[in-house]
């Protein structure tokens, strides 16, 4: 009993760690796609900013500077995306894919050129990372059975970016649904003509949205390399951007449901790691690869059948042009 409780606790703990970058990216996706811009480049932006965060932190010694550098890098990638598909009305999927490919190649090339470590950045010391925050008053909580453990092990003891990701969800919800900016952002993704004829610049709205998306992706990247990890490794985003995109669609472009989708995908991955090498009843030992594939398989199944009609923003993927 106690053992299985401990197991669940540690599973939930790693769920949160794994879900954090997904949450940032899903919120980034919501900002971008609600404004009508498909953001398949989440993956690339995250990878690029992970690299920049680690590099800047290593060079300056300050994770704060590293974080800002990551946001700057991610926003730059957003601007490239915007220039291609807002200003020049290019195809948003192609442009996003280009960013992913660019990030994948650029990080390795620059990594080798700068550090000669096969694409990795040198390991960071704990002063150079966002370390778990210790809440001293919480230690007394552990006296309370179960609930105390749950609190101390699962909720407490994460780095600042984990908490920030939860804040990002509420921030996204508030901005999108409760502010004038959000009303216009949703309108521009549903029917840009309505926004244009209301005297609001469609182009400006969309650039603002993708810049916010860029910032959130930057946080996701920084989390990977200077908070959760201690340095950048090649291809370290490992498809998380795509999973986040799937979680966002699963959550129907709404922040709160998307948060839960991210947690679900995080849980599955944590479970997969946990079950590696474990003998299961009737089945026997499940190959690692099957477990690793689990979240992706579930994504496909969920997207194919279970989420019902996911209604994308009306004007998503369509460049806006006035004169035919």
């Amino acid at each position: 009993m106690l053992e299985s409780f401990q197991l669940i606790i540690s599973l939930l703990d790693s769920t949160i760690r794994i879900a954090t970058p997904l949450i940032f990216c899903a919120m980034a996706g919501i900002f971008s796609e609600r404004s009508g811009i498909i953001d398949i480049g989440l993956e690339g932006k995250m990878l690029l900013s992970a690299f920049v965060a680690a590099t800047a932190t290593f060079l300056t010694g300050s994770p704060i500077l590293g974080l800002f550098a990551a946001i700057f890098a991610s926003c730059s990638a957003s601007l490239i995306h915007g220039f291609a598909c807002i200003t020049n009305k290019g195809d948003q999927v192609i442009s996003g894919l280009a960013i992913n490919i660019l990030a994948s190649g650029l990080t390795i090339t620059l990594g080798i050129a700068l550090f000669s470590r096969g694409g990795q950045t040198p390991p960071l010391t704990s002063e150079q990372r966002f370390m778990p925050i210790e809440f001293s008053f919480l230690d007394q909580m552990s006296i309370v059975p179960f609930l105390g453990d749950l609190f101390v092990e699962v909720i407490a003891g994460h780095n600042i970016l984990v908490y920030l990701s939860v804040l990002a969800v509420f921030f996204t919800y508030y901005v999108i649904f409760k502010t004038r900016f959000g009303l216009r952002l949703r309108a521009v993704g549903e029917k840009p003509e309505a926004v244009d004829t209301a005297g609001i610049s469609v182009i400006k709205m969309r650039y603002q949205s993708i810049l916010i998306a860029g910032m959130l992706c930057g946080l996701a990247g920084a989390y990977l390399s200077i908070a959760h990890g201690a340095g950048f490794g090649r291809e370290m985003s490992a498809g998380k951007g795509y999973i986040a995109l799937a979680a966002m669609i699963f959550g129907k472009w709404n922040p709160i449901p998307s948060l839960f989708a991210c947690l679900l995908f995080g849980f599955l991955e944590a479970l997969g790691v946990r079950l590696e090498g474990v003998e299961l009843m009737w089945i026997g030992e499940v190959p690692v690869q099957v477990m690793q594939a689990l979240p992706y398989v579930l994504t496909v199944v969920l997207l194919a059948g279970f989420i019902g009609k996911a209604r994308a923003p009306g004007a998503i993927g369509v460049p806006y042009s006035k004169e035919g």
Partner: protein
Amino acid sequence: MKTIENKEGNETPDPLPSSNRPAIELKNITKRFGHVVANSHVNLKVRKGTIHGIVGENGAGKSTLMNILFGLYKPDTGMIFLNGQAVDVNSPEKSIALGIGMVHQHFMLVPTFTVLENAMLGNEGSMLLKSGEELVLDRLKVLSENYGLDVDFEAIISDTPVGMQQRVEILKALNRGAKILILDEPTGVLTPQETIRLFDILTSLREQGVTIVLITHKLKEIMSITDTVSVMRGGKVVANFSTEKTSPEELAENMVGRKVLLSINKPTLKVGNPVLKVKNVCHESKDGVNVLKDISFDLKEGEILGIAGVAGNGQSELLDILSGIETLQRGQITFNDKTILPYQDWNSKKARDFGVAHVPEDRHKRGLVLPFYNYENSILGYHRNKEYYSGFLMDKRKIFNFVDDLVENFDVRPRSSSISSGKLSGGNQQKLVLAREIECNPKILLVGQPTRGVDIGAIERIYEDLMKLKSKGTAILLVSVELDEIMSLSDRIIVMNQGSIVGETNSSDATELDLGKMMSGLEKV
């Protein structure tokens, strides 16, 4: 490219007192799209507090001109004056600030938003929605009451009828403080009753000093509500009239550039045996809505049966089933002696084999493949016909021979088989579709919205072709939202509302008001 000249160049004092200055004055406006000249040296004056009509055929440049005034398009040359002041309207933002509001032909509303959210977009009152909504709602309620613009502020736009959507558009403009209101083809989607209501609203706006510009191709409306009217043709203003001193005939002549026959010569012809019998047809849409409820009617040889109704009351689904696009779910349909039963194999090829031709409501979606050339579009659906083949390959020469004659006989302009159909005007595209469907000598012709987006000149021709076909004995089922068209072409009229037939009448007995009542579901006959 020259842009609008600056204010500074124009400081000559206006001798007129400000009240006599025109609210809107356009001088020498020219606008090109690529090689097409949409507006050429247009001059226009509209007095304050009047309703000014602009009539013209499709492509005459009416909408372009108004989009320039609204700041959506930049003119290549020319100047705009509001109340005697030269202004530089380079964006909707600017024009709205100057007190111009525009209700577009295709409503600029966000379908997933509420009425209130749509009406406040762009003037939300506050950075935060909650406080803004309260503020704007108070303001809108006053406007709504003053001008009879009643709307349900909570409703989601996509659930509201078009009449209400239009009132939301007007409210939206007034919320921005519009003193000049441009309406682009506002009555195209309205029932006669809703049109009357709209005109009441416009009249009360005029009384409050609002200047209104009304773009339309319906001459009757121009005659009934405007004070002055300008006629546009080929991108130019060709005539200006005071409405009381002109007539529909004179306006039509100016629009087309020659005398136009507004009435139709209906061949009197004895109708024959029923060739199409529709019995108790019901249909459920994919969303589970009953879009057709127990539809039964007969269509006879040489008869034109008109189906009137506001768009979206089941007419489209009926056409889809009859033409083989949709599966029949309940009821039965008999073409001559062949009967179709529910869930039988029924498709558009079979329909053609039965002698049913179909001119679809949406010619862009279903009538034509726009990037295809005329010769390809002209045989679409009949491409299995052996006449077009040599062996098992299509024979381009044979096709060209056929299509060259077709565009000649049906006056499709430009008369070319190898131009892409997307480059034709709406009227000529429609003529091409009609030509294709008539040329196969159908026994039954299904026609949906034959003149939607079609010029008067082309309309005249299309009506002529339909009458010729009728006199050959073809049975024609005509679906149209244009009441005038239904009334003047049909022998018999049935009216549909919410998927049911709510009335039937001979066209000689029909009046527009009665039909309108039936269309809105107010009265059963």
